[in-house]
């Protein structure tokens, strides 16, 4: 069947047959599935991991190595078959868009052959996402975040960040007073020591922005303020239920935890609950004293460890649930990855396309020419001490190569250096859009006295510049469309160029 399909392509779509699209697609799909499955299985979380001992996944390194190797090998294999026939060089009939079609197919081919790693990481993320639904993951992260309020961790500084959050949840901000001069802070009319639990921070997850975190924190503080032990006990039960589900060890249950930390109304007298059973101990020689009712120091293998008497698996939970939250909320395989992969495929496709359209000799001369040109522009830029020199020369080079092609096409007096300049034009084409963007942005800033460091009011004062800056990432995708459109036109000109005399 496979052979028959190839034969049909040979008879009906010789270009597609010559590009070996069917074997290529079959190979690429099979390898993507393999890497997706590998990623899925390798994406399993080890809930005992805390991040302390995390030094990278050995399997990851091996798979990355093989993904890159397989990408390179499959591209070489593809090229070997693809290079066997070149209809353009043999002057086989071609319509005005067949060169464009050929490039587009190469581009798609490179996209699929250079993205095995993406499939691997996507598989990993899918596996991590599969642990819990978005709602469940958010619910659990909220519980863990609020629970972390009662575990060893940092405290707020003198600045009271609760006012804003209090306002958000409808608390009268007039009752919340920030103080930078006193050794206490006032919350809803009550004074609390900075060492009070009321001043504690909670751990955040990528699901929650600053505002959400503040709301969660305010909720906990309100329970404490209102002496709502039941709500807090309930939180602890939920927290420990999560820990137990992952078979993580803790030295306290919900009641004990509550007893150890609860000291209404001041919340100053409480025991530290460790975020793990033991941690490296560093003696800072700062005169700090270890509270032996909370922990003790032990030597193991010439290392000092601090053992907590009361501990919860907060570090392990935070480490793993952060991954779950990230997989849902800010996956690695996102539009940025897509942009990177698209540009890699675009670059590779133009390298190969230029080789097909011109020749290996022109290709090598273009590399040497660009190398020499780079050195010269570098020297020129250094002399001029301007960042614009380099970009101006590159921009001029692209425009110059393009005009030279059009002129030579019209003259029909030999190809001249067009084989080399066409190669350079194809290679540098994707940089045209970003350079123009950069120049437009810089000129706009220069003519409107835009201050890079004056953040306030900038969006109102310079809306166009701000829009341009915000649109930078989107423009990367627009640039790919621009390159595609230019190639649509250029491929027609390159076909004509192929027809003119060599010398």
């Amino acid at each position, binding site marked *: 069947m496979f052979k028959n399909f190839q034969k*049909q392509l*040979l*008879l*009906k779509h*010789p270009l597609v*047959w*010559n590009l070996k699209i069917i074997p290529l697609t079959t190979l690429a799909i099979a390898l993507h599935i393999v890497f997706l499955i590998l990623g899925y299985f390798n994406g399993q979380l080890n809930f005992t991991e805390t991040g302390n001992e995390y030094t990278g996944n050995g399997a990851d390194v091996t798979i990355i190595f093989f993904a890159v190797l397989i990408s390179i090998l499959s591209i070489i294999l593809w090229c070997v078959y693809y290079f*066997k*026939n070149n*209809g353009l060089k043999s*002057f*086989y*009939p*071609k319509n005005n868009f067949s060169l464009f079609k050929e490039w587009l197919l190469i581009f798609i081919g490179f996209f699929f052959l250079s993205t095995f790693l993406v499939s691997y990481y996507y598989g990993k993320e899918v596996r991590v996402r599969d642990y819990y639904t978005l709602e469940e993951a958010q619910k659990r992260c909220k519980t863990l975040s609020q629970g972390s309020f009662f575990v060893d961790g940092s405290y707020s500084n003198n600045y009271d960040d609760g006012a804003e959050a209090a306002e958000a949840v409808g608390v009268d901000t007039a009752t919340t007073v920030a103080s930078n001069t006193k050794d206490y802070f006032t919350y809803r009319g009550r004074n609390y020591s900075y060492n009070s639990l009321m001043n504690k921070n909670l751990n955040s997850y990528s699901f929650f922005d600053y505002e959400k975190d503040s709301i969660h924190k305010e909720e906990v503080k309100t329970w404490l303020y209102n002496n709502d032990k039941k709500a807090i006990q309930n939180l602890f039960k939920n927290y420990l239920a999560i820990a137990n589900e992952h078979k993580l060890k803790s030295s306290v249950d919900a009641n004990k935890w509550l007893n150890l930390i609860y000291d209404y109304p001041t919340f100053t007298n409480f025991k530290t609950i460790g975020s793990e059973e033991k941690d490296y101990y560093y003696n800072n020689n700062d005169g700090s004293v270890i509270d032996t009712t909370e922990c003790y120091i032990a030597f193991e293998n010439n290392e000092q460890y601090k053992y907590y008497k009361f501990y919860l698996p907060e570090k392990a939970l935070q480490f793993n649930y952060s991954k779950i939250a990230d997989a849902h909320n800010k996956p690695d395989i996102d539009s940025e990855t897509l942009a990177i992969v698209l540009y890699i495929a675009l670059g590779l496709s133009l390298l190969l396309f230029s080789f097909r359209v011109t020749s290996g000799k022109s290709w090598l001369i273009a590399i040497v020419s660009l190398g020499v040109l780079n050195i010269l522009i570098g020297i020129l830029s250094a002399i001029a001490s301007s960042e614009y020199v380099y970009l101006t020369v590159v921009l001029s080079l692209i425009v110059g190569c393009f005009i030279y092609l059009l002129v030579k096409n019209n003259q*029909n*007096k*030999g190809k001249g250096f067009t084989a080399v300049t066409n190669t350079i034009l194809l290679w540098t084409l994707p940089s045209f859009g970003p350079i123009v963007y950069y120049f437009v942005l810089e000129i706009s800033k220069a003519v409107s006295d835009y201050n890079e460091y004056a953040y306030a009011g900038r969006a109102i004062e310079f809306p166009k510049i701000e829009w341009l800056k915000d649109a930078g990432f989107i423009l990367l995708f627009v640039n790919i469309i621009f390159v595609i459109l230019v190639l649509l036109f250029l491929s027609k000109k390159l*076909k*004509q160029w*192929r*027809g*003119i*005399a*060599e*010398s």
Partner: protein
Amino acid sequence: MNEFQKQFEELQNFLKFEDYSILTKRIIDLTLDTEDVSHYKKTNDFLNWLDRNEENNFEKKEKFASVLNELHQTLSQKPIAERKVLVSASKLEKSYGISRFGLGPINLELRQGEILGLVGENGNGKTTLLRLLCGDLFATNGTIKYNFDYQDLYDLRTQLVYIPQRTDTWYGSMFENLQFTASCYGYLPEENEVIVELIIARLGLRKFRNHSWKSLSSGYKMRFELARMLLRKPKILLIDEPLANLDILAQQTVLEDFKSIAKSAFRPIGIVLSSQQLYEVEKTSDQVIFLKQGKQKNLHEKENATDDSITDKQLVIEFESAFNQKQLGDLFDPFGMISLQFNGGTYIVTFPDTVSVTNFMEIIIQKNIPVTYFRNISNSTRRFFVS
């Protein structure tokens, strides 16, 4: 009697004398002329039948006759192609810079169905002229005019097939390569395989259809190039030294193939070929251009003869003899000998137009001159080589 009728009569003679080898080739040519897939299939079936019934002479003759008749019926309805001018070059020159080689001025005109032979010693501009005509080089001076439609220069060059002396390697099976070419040239899927089969058979390549390029001799490589060329349906075929690597028999076969391809009654093409095989090319070509240091000398110049063309009617004979130059001079002088040159083992004797070849033979017999070989080169570019 039109061109097709003449050709058909010739084929009937082949049948009459059971010259099946040439007849098979010409039947394939006629089949390709029909441009009809049903005929392609019928002829292919017939070729397969022939393979299986090599010894069945009686039935073979009947089958040949039947196929011929069917082709005749179809082609009789088809209009005969006009012999239009394909390309004309006027004062064509190519210079590679001061004090380097320069070609031209060249004047030529090539019609459909004509073969133009380019002869000359190495380095005298044959390849340059071929490359100028196929658009691979641009002319420094003068003009080339192609008298057929084309959209742009690329489109023009798809219709001018140039086969250089050193051809590129083909990768993969030969059959697949030809199918790829056929497909690129717009043959329909249903006719692709069958037309490739026909062309392979036409050039005697059936045994080599699945061979790789490297396993073929240079003669067969040339044949595959010709097979590909046939699929490309060129207006003009330009071919550099096609006979270079062929034995004498293969040379004659290839030249005969060129002749029948060029002179198709329905799809005539122009062929320009360069060669060192002077006499073979002269036999096949309608025009011969001799190039010496880039300058043109024409043979068979019909009208507007230039100083460079052979216009006089002198008798020029090339011969080999055991006699020395003085002995020969003394014997030829009384018959009005104009010149006698010794040229690399052979003599070239020139007589006025009053002396004929028969007279020359009479002198040989009469004077008992020992001659091992002689050739009348009065109408051959060989004259230019030796002059």
